[in-house]
């Protein structure tokens, strides 16, 4: 990016030099206040009178020299631009290697670890929310009773309640499952832990994780 800006500045400098080369000699004898278009056309007119103006030959040779320099600079700039484009393409190809390969295979180049990472962040936010809350004894008691009835269901015999921590708007439940099948059975019905307008989040860190944390919000309260 920085190199590209330099090249633009460089190009602008060349353009200014070229304009200066054409107009400055022609302007040297122009009275103040005269229109620029007249000045240029006058300079052009003068160039046709080369036999009658001795200073014209000097100016012409200076102009030729400047024009040569400008052309050389323009060539240099074009070469530099080509080199810059080539190196940018190479860099892009190197950096986008996996993405390009995924694209050609018709696969999204998304990070496969992102879901678990985001789930961990949600769990952290839940823990932070709970820690700052006082206990609402009435709601906490009601939730504990509900959880007790839920985990007493026969299909959940492979799920053991380790601890429950209910505060004002959220509970954290720690569970352990006998097997992955038990965990699946729990997940199938875990929405019953919340009231009709509450929410439940089961944080399962890995595919084989049997010890999980479950967060249950109070009715009408969203997960943080």
């Amino acid at each position, binding site marked *: 990016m920085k190199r590209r800006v330099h090249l633009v500045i460089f190009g602008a400098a060349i353009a200014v030099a070229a304009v200066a080369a054409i107009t400055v000699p022609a302007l040297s004898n122009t009275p103040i206040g005269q229109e620029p278009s007249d000045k240029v056309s006058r300079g052009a007119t003068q160039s046709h009178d080369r036999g009658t103006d001795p200073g014209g030959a000097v100016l012409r040779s200076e102009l030729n020299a400047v024009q040569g320099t400008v052309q050389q600079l323009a060539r240099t700039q074009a070469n530099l631009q080509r080199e810059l484009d080539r190196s940018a393409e190479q860099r892009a190809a190197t950096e986008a290697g996996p993405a390009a390969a995924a694209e050609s295979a018709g696969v999204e180049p998304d990070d496969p670890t*992102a879901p678990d990472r985001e789930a961990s962040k949600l769990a952290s936010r839940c823990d932070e929310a709970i820690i700052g809350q006082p206990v609402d004894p009435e709601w906490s008691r009601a939730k504990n009773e509900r959880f007790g009835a839920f985990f007493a269901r026969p299909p959940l015999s492979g799920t053991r309640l380790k601890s429950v921590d209910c505060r004002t708007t959220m509970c954290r439940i720690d569970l352990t499952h006998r097997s992955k099948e038990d965990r699946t059975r729990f997940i199938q019905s875990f929405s019953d832990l919340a009231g009709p*307008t509450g929410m439940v989040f089961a944080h399962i860190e890995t595919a084989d994780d049997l010890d999980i944390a479950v967060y249950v919000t109070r009715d009408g309260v969203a997960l943080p």
Partner: protein
Amino acid sequence: MNIRTLRVMQALVGLGLFGAAGTAVALNNLPGFQCVPLSGAVRPNSNGHAENFGSTTATVMCPVFVDAGQSGLASSGTPQVFVVDQNSADDVCCSSRVKNTGQSVVSGGTSCSSGVTSAQLALTNPGTPGGNFTFTHRWLQCDIPGVGAGVSEIRLYRY
């Protein structure tokens, strides 16, 4: 077409996109037969509903369209399921679920029918938060009780 015209068109297109992004997502009616069984004896009927023709409770999962560009929505809104419950012992119960391709799951609470009736009932489920992922997917999960006074079914769901 001159540059000014192009710029005006570009601005109008930009405004249109902005307007679309700021507009609430419209709800869609989806037929019950879109729901697929996770367990139990569930089949579609000629009315486009999903009915439990077995004697025990069946669980179905009803897919919800998620625009990948919109999957980071903070909430799924408030989906509704229109059901018939003809079992006196058990109810039709639904929850709204959201998941990424990881292991964790988020669910809204369970909303259930009550009583026995051949009339249609509406279950309203709370929205569930989404994740800012390309892979976020949503569905409604419902338990349909077995045959009682008649078949219980999911008629349609709105999301």
